[in-house]
């Protein structure tokens, strides 16, 4: 299944998460963010998105909300202000990686 973001055609799952992280770029991220209600990605948003993406590329899985809060440099409280509909999920989506499947 494919979808077009910012003029780029990418592979996505049925919920719209990208399946091939290599197809991702920052324009795609900005458009995906708007789709989930985040008008502008601030520096703090980027810090989280880039952390989640690079953790996935290094280890093959997205970080838990606990390690996101401890290691991304953005505490849990602020994470939920930046991404009210769920930071772990939305940062993965905007960061162009598959949907995280962790319970924590």
């Amino acid at each position, binding site marked *: 299944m494919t979808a077009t973001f910012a003029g780029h055609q990418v592979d996505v799952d049925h919920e719209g998460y990208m399946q091939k992280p290599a197809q991702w770029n920052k324009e795609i991220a900005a458009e995906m963010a708007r789709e989930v209600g985040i008008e502008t990605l601030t520096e703090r948003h980027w810090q989280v998105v880039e952390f989640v993406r690079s953790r996935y590329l290094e280890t093959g899985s997205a970080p838990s*909300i606990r390690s996101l*809060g401890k290691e991304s440099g953005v505490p849990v*409280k602020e994470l939920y202000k930046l991404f009210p*509909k*769920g*930071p772990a*999920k939305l940062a993965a989506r905007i960061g162009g990686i598959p949907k995280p499947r962790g319970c*924590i």
Partner: protein
Amino acid sequence: MTSTVMPEPTTAVEGRADSIQKVSIIISKGSLEGIYPGLIMANGARMEGIEANVFFTFFGMDAITKKRHNAIKVATVGNPGLHIPTLLGAIPGMSAFVTSQMKKEMEKLDIPPIPEFIEMIADTGAGIYACLATVDMFKLKKEDFVDHVTDIITVGEFYEMAAGGEIVFT
């Protein structure tokens, strides 16, 4: 002969959204295995962007009590799920041993210890509430609770808060 017409089976409750918007989770047990499921469900709800409230009652309240929240243990007696004979489970130190083993496994999965977990859940924006009836029964005061407790509330206030969402009892 009379025949009765059975009502059509209900397939969907009218007016219900197909996604959950709010959950109110009640934690009533004070063992490690009694407390964690509710905490995981509350945190998991917030991860999905679902509004969540956690209501602690009876021995579940140990999870938010300063004196107790660091000493929550697995029940090794009367817990068939552990597959330890009751008499073995009763040996002094058994509960502490099983608890420390389980905590190690949970740490591997990035499941935080209870005090940290409560703080994290509060930071996600979920409400943390203590049950007034239990507070009175155990003669507790606001100061006995960890700082993340939003309020001490009655059952009625709990239902008011839970209105329009799902209630999960653990």
